[in-house]
């Protein structure tokens, strides 16, 4: 494994793969905070040059976090198809990039080789790709999933209705939900972040969303994004959950900080299959985001792009219905400004899709990040072009419970009209029946929440 590169009259030497991977990243404040980022632009390029010549076997043979000590590494290792890996093991990372971008490499070929890739290989190629590379390659990959309806088809942009309320008021939640539905949003999931992480509160919201789904025969799925243990208690008490939710980290220690491990996820998986109300086969909703491992000091000196890729390697085990990175929620010490958050959004979406994960993105920012709503407009358009499965809808992009800004019901409707995208087919049929949409466009009554009263 060659870890040196000559550039501009200097020889750059890196001590191990971990250092190459970290320094080959585009600039991120989180890698700088961890003290592992490239010192300057030239060193960053030297690391990219070294990485481009490494083979996929080099990456697999030098685990960044050994499987012996980390169960996420084990999950990723165990998923590798050895025959397909043997076909591509001698490819360099540069060759993998070029293979993905070739005009005769289509969805089916990518789907096949993805079974021979580890999350670290996926992260490696991402570090060599430009933003437009990430858009184009991701757009080739179609990952469809089915809970109560199918989403993820080419040409479909779904939306999560996120009708959060600062005190978990059922009435207030429904008010925002009606607004969402009236704009044609809610095909990905009716998903609520609860303020109170209690089984009782989770159950109340699952029942309330299910009531509306039954009353108006809405073809979608419900979910309340509490801790998995809380959801399991609620389900045991008879709560109707189509999907179960959990936040994931890319290391075992990171997951410990989230209060989960693979054993618990296995138990929950078994439970949602036996006691969930969703049709399936895809019954999970996961959220991730660059930087969470560093924030819980569980990063093992590994860069945040690679750790994020490992989240998708773990997610894949549970065949999720939807997964999204909450890309700009974590704060400027991990993703400093709009340039970094836009890059991270495109990286995460691509890394998930390349691992056959049904990726959505919470295109978002907090008020201490150097970003504003215009930057979210930009990232949302880029992701729509990249074929993102869904984005998040909150009223006027302002989440009054989580105190951050995402994308709005208006934004999803606008992206559909501008980018010639449609809601999930089953949902669009329902929208037509309700008179909210006609030929893929909102009708004059769209935007009136009182049609659901």
């Amino acid at each position, binding site marked *: 494994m060659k870890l040196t590169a000559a550039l501009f009259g200097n020889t750059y030497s890196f001590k191990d793969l971990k250092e190459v991977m970290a320094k080959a990243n585009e600039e991120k*404040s989180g890698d700088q*905070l961890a003290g592992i980022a490239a010192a300057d632009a030239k060193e960053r390029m030297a690391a990219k040059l070294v990485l481009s010549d490494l083979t996929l076997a080099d990456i697999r043979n030098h685990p960044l976090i050994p499987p012996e000590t980390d169960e996420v590494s084990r999950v990723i290792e165990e998923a590798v198809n050895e025959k397909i890996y043997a076909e591509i093991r001698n490819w360099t990372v540069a060759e993998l990039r070029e293979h993905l971008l070739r005009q005769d490499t289509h969805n089916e070929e990518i789907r096949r080789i993805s079974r021979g890739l580890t999350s670290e290989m996926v992260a490696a190629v991402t570090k060599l790709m430009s933003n437009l590379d990430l858009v184009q390659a991701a757009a080739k990959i179609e990952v469809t999933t089915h809970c109560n309806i199918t989403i993820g088809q080419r040409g479909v942009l779904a939306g999560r209705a996120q009708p*959060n*309320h*600062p*005190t978990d*008021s059922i*009435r*207030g*939640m429904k*008010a*925002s939900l*009606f*607004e969402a539905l009236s*704009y044609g949003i809610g095909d990905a999931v009716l998903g609520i*972040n609860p*303020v*109170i*992480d209690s089984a009782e509160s989770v159950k109340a919201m699952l029942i309330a969303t299910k009531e509306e789904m039954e009353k108006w025969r809405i073809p979608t799925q419900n979910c309340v*994004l509490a*801790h998995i243990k809380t959801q399991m208690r609620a389900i045991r008490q008879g709560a109707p959950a189509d999907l179960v939710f959990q*936040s994931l980290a890319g290391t075992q220690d990171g997951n410990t900080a*989230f209060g989960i491990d693979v054993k618990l996820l296995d138990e929950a998986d078994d439970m949602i299959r036996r006691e969930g109300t969703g049709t399936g086969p895809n019954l999970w909703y996961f*959220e991730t985001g660059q930087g*969470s491992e560093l924030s819980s000091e569980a990063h093992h000196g590994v860069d945040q792009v690679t750790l994020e890729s490992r989240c998708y390697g773990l997610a894949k085990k549970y065949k999720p219905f939807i997964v999204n990175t*909450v890309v700009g*929620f*974590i704060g*400027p*010490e991990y993703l*400093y400004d709009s340039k970094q958050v836009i890059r991270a959004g495109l990286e995460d979406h691509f890394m998930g899709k390349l691992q056959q994960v049904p990726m959505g993105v919470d295109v978002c920012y*907090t*008020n*201490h*990040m*150097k970003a*504003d*709503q215009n930057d979210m407009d930009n990232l949302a358009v880029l992701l729509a072009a990249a074929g993102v499965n869904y984005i998040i809808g909150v*009223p*006027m*992009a*302002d989440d*009054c*419970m*989580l*105190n951050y*800004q995402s994308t709005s019901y*208006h934004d999803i*409707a*606008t992206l559909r*009209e501008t980018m010639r995208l449609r809601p999930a087919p089953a949902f669009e049929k329902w929208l037509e029946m309700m008179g909210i949409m006609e030929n893929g466009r*909102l009708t004059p*009554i*769209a*935007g*009136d*929440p*009182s*049609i659901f*009263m």
Partner: protein
Amino acid sequence: MNRTIPLDQLVDKVMAELQKKLPAALQNAASQPAANVTESRMPSETGSADDFGPPISHVPNAKWAEGVEELIASTPARIGVWRSGTRPLTREMLKFRCDHAAAIDSVYGTVSQPLLDEFGLFTVDTYFENIDNYLKRPDMGRIIRDDGVERIRRSCRMKPQVQIVVSDGLSANAVDANLRDVYPSLLDSLSAHGLSLGTPFFVRGGRVAVMDHIGDIIEPEVLVLLIGERPGLVSSRSMSAYMCYRPRKGTVESDRTVISNIHPRGTPSLEAGAHIGSVLKAMLEQKTSGVNLDI
């Protein structure tokens, strides 16, 4: 991502919600004109929420107009806002941008020097250098610069019972908007409880854990840090009081007690001052703080 909020914030939110349901007329009466904002000593608390009037339905020909009003009244979410094509109406869009502007200016603002002078607070800096670096390097906001350490050693009474520290944190506006009320009521409360006070000062570019470094220098029995919170769109002027019994290097998050959401529509500043005093008293009696404190 793990997105949970602490119970105290929840309580504050419930309070804020209840406040919101006060008659609109009352809210309007309390609002300040938007002119001369930079000069104003008492800028309107939530900015555009008042300037734009209470939220009303913009849905034309609604199937049930009163129904839309009912929905709007049930949530602080921006609903019933209507559209032009698929885009928001201009005024709604501008209202959103105004709230964001207030939030941004809070992060990048500086605390008023006359205010600090009024309470006799001298200033020390952390190693934050500038706001941009402050945002990227929270670790640098946790250490006082050497010259600041010298100044503290020279100016402050060592080993006091109660040490008060004020910091801008993520919202200078929060200090400007709340200190004048919180500080005197805290002093009253301390004297009512018979507690003795060290020499208070201001930390520019501070993070919560700067408490530990200050604890190492001064060795107070209890320390309270009044610091600006990360601004939201609902309030950009919210302050927190972090309190700790014998803070030292290595203190963990769960050893700290916090009262958050201190602003007129959350925990009112005057009440907060009195409440902080009684929490500090309890810490001194129980010789502990954070999750171990029984209050």
